[in-house]
């Protein structure tokens, strides 16, 4: 990397949003062939910055240079012509179209006509991104869908590729494959701007990291010279607390049992649950790993009583059968739930926070008496949640939609945990939550088990599961593996299970399961 000229250089980029400065005099430069990490907590201004680079919106002031010439990019198609490609975190693909048709929609007319499928095959072979142009998107895994987006970018011969949290939906093996591709692109001189908050990945992959906090660049570093901890501290601006777990804890009697849960999904392209069995003991945290869309949502819905359990399935809370109880009756006897989607599922966007406490705590906290809502009790409980879980908000009358993702998640967790559940079931507890809040949320889950509760965590974040779980099971295609004690299973083995390989098919390390 002895080239002196820069591929992309930003000078004093500033962008205001109402009441906040999203980017404050940001300076940054990316060299040709460099894999450059853009690191920061949620709300640090990473997304705003890359949207500016990609021409989604303008900046209030500042200059941008492309290969040492000053340019202005006013929309994404101009960015693509310049040589900037971007793979978004949320894919824009049509399920009912084929790979080739999807790619044709997103590129220029000239590229889309004449032998597109040959070009797709050529690019996908060249960079190790196996892809069949004639397959329909709904038949593809998330990893394969991401390849479509990458190939779509590569077809346009970009010299800078922006990737927004690309690994959040991939198995460890898929991540490795993606990294190989990215390194190959880098060897060919293509620069990559890699947005993530997964520190280990950045150490593994990136040549350089720019760290942002509150809209400003706080540091530039070489990830090889840093530890994940030191980068976390730069990112958060304060000491990093990792959750403390009691070692050698002893568990009590079985608190939650699932027996033979079968359930046909009512979602389009959903996953049917098949013969799920699981026991969770008092004081235990059980984690369920798996790639999104393998039955996690369906499992939570069955556990929360939002959809009925299928034939022959049984759910027991202690000795009591709860199979046929509805959601609120389950809450009354000590179950609590945190769904994945915060706005719209765990909270109503256009309702105040105090009204949102009524959503799940109406009966367990006696906020509703003979059908009438007690505003006084609801506000009191809401204030308690805000204080205890350090939710940053003007007060109980604020709309749920005005809270940032992390803050709202703290509110929802507080609401559920302060109902003193015996069993807490959570889906993606820290998805999109900044590192500091995530650590506090994880700690609160561990604390809960000290009060004789059992916790079931369903998450795609393996590091998180390894950090807090006592046992880990893997869900794949609606089937649940046995739960293995966390010290008897490796990340690689979990990755294989996530990919659908049975444990009997790879070398066995500790087959004893609780």
């Amino acid at each position, binding site marked *: 990397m002895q080239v002196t000229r820069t591929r992309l250089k930003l000078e004093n980029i500033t962008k205001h949003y109402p009441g906040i400065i999203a980017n404050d005099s940001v300076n940054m430069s990316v060299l040709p062939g460099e894999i450059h990490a853009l690191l920061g907590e949620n709300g640090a201004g990473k997304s705003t910055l890359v949207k500016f680079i990609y021409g989604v919106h303008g900046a209030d002031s500042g200059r941008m240079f492309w290969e040492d010439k000053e340019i202005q990019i006013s929309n994404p198609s101009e960015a693509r012509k310049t040589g900037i490609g971007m793979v978004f975190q949320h894919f824009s693909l049509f399920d009912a179209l084929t790979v080739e048709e999807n790619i044709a929609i997103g590129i220029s007319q000239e590229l889309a006509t004449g032998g597109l499928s040959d070009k797709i095959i050529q690019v996908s072979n060249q960079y190790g991104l196996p892809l069949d142009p004639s397959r329909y998107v709904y038949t593809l895994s998330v990893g394969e869908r991401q390849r479509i987006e990458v190939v779509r970018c590569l077809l346009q011969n970009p010299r800078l590729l922006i990737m927004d949290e690309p690994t959040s939906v991939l198995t460890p093996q898929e991540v490795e494959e993606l990294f190989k591709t990215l390194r190959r692109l880098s060897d060919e001189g293509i620069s990559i701007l890699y947005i993530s908050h997964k520190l280990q990945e950045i150490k593994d992959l990136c040549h350089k990291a720019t760290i942002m906090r509150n809209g400003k660049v706080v540091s530039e570093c070489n990830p090889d010279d840093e530890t994940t901890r030191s980068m976390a501290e730069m990112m958060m601006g304060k000491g990093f607390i990792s959750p403390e777990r009691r070692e050698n804890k002893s568990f009590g009697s079985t608190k939650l049992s699932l027996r033979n849960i079968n359930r046909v999904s009512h979602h389009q392209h959903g996953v049917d649950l098949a013969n799920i069995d699981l026991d969770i003991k008092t004081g235990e945290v059980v984690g369920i790993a798996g790639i999104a869309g393998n039955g996690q949502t369906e499992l939570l819905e069955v556990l929360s009583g939002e959809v009925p359990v299928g034939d022959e399935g049984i759910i027991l809370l202690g000795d009591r059968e709860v199979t046929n109880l509805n959601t609120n009756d389950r809450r009354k006897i000590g179950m609590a739930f945190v769904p994945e989607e915060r706005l719209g599922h*765990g909270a109503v966007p256009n*309702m105040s926070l105090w009204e949102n406490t009524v959503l799940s705590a109406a009966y367990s906290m006696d906020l509703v008496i003979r059908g009438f*809502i007690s505003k006084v009790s609801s506000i009191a409980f809401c204030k308690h949640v805000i204080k205890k879980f350090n939710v940053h908000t003007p007060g109980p009358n604020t709309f749920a939609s005005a809270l940032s993702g992390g803050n709202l998640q703290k509110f929802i967790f507080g609401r559920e945990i302060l109902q003193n559940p015996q069993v807490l079931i959570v889906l993606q507890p820290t998805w999109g939550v900044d590192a500091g809040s995530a650590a506090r949320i994880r700690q609160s889950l561990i604390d809960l088990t000290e009060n004789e509760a059992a916790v079931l965590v369903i998450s795609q974040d393996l590091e998180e599961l390894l950090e807090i779980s006592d046992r880990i099971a893997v869900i794949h295609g609606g089937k649940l593996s046995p739960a293995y004690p966390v010290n008897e299973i490796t990340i690689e083995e979990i990755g294989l299970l996530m990919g659908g390989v049975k444990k009997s098919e790879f070398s066995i390390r500790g087959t004893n399961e609780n």
Partner: protein
Amino acid sequence: MKIRFEPRQSESKTVVFLSPLVAVLFTGLFSMLIFAILGVDPITAVYTFFIGPVTSIAGWAELFVKATPLVLIGIGLSFGFRSNIWNIGAEGQLTIGALTGGGLALLFYNVDSVFLLPAMIIAGIFGGAIWAAIPAFLRVRFNTNEILTSLMLVYVAQLILSYLIQGPMRAPDGYNFPESRLFHDAALLPTLISETRLHAGWIAALFFAVIAWILWSRHIIGFQVKVAGDAPLAARFSGVREKNVTWLVLLISGGAAGLAGMIEVSGPIGQIVPIISPGYGFTAIIVAFLGRLNPIGIIFSGMLMALTYLGGDAAQIEMKLPNAVTGVFQGMLLFFLLATDFFVKYRIRFGALRETQDNGSSKKGVVG
């Protein structure tokens, strides 16, 4: 100087109340402009339209008579609209309510009992509710679009009315006119002010508004209906069954429309006629939204809408203006209301940005 719009952190109570008033004010100003363009003296025109009809007790009485069905139906519909159930067939439910309630009056034509009127009220509510139960059942069972089914049932109801009024319900000594017999006194709603048409139905509308207000502001039912409309998944999360909400709101709105129909035939009309309502069931949709789906707001919007009917008539008679003026007014009113509505969720800021350094973490969500 720059003008910018900022989302508010929470709804501004003042603006919620102020915006309909501002909308009415603008409607007044712009209608004067339109009158001027039409070559009519704007002051006289506005007076004739908005003030003239309510310069007498009889005028007010007439206003309340017209507002009664609008308010009743509007409040009923607000339950559906808040939960995203679009019952636009209130006109049909009104017709059936008039037939069941009025039918009872004809059936017991010779009975002079104090129980007749209460029985007619119940029959009217039931009639409307049953008519609304059809789209409810179809939606819950077959996921049929209730907008289409409820609307189509309006025409079915009108054909049933047509059949009955030309056959079984036709007055035996009515020279074959398609009209029923005039109801007996026991089947007529008591008049509130003598020499006017104002009847007890207006009290019923106000009473319904109070009940609805309590349900919305204090009761779990109102809460669940709101949640079901705003966030269906969150409703399920809080243990609300979507099907139950569908049934509930359709039965409430159908029952209210049925009651309005019964009140029309046993109040101002006094018999069953081929055309019972001049489209109250449809106008009530506008009334519901103009009143912010809020029961108290709907009382006022219902009165305002009633006034545009009266004013339209007056302008036609006294100033020879076309009846379309009524429609123009109603359209302008809605237009300005929607425009001012924007400021409930957003605030306007002038000038350059304030250099706020607060890290307002609660606002970070906007930045992403």
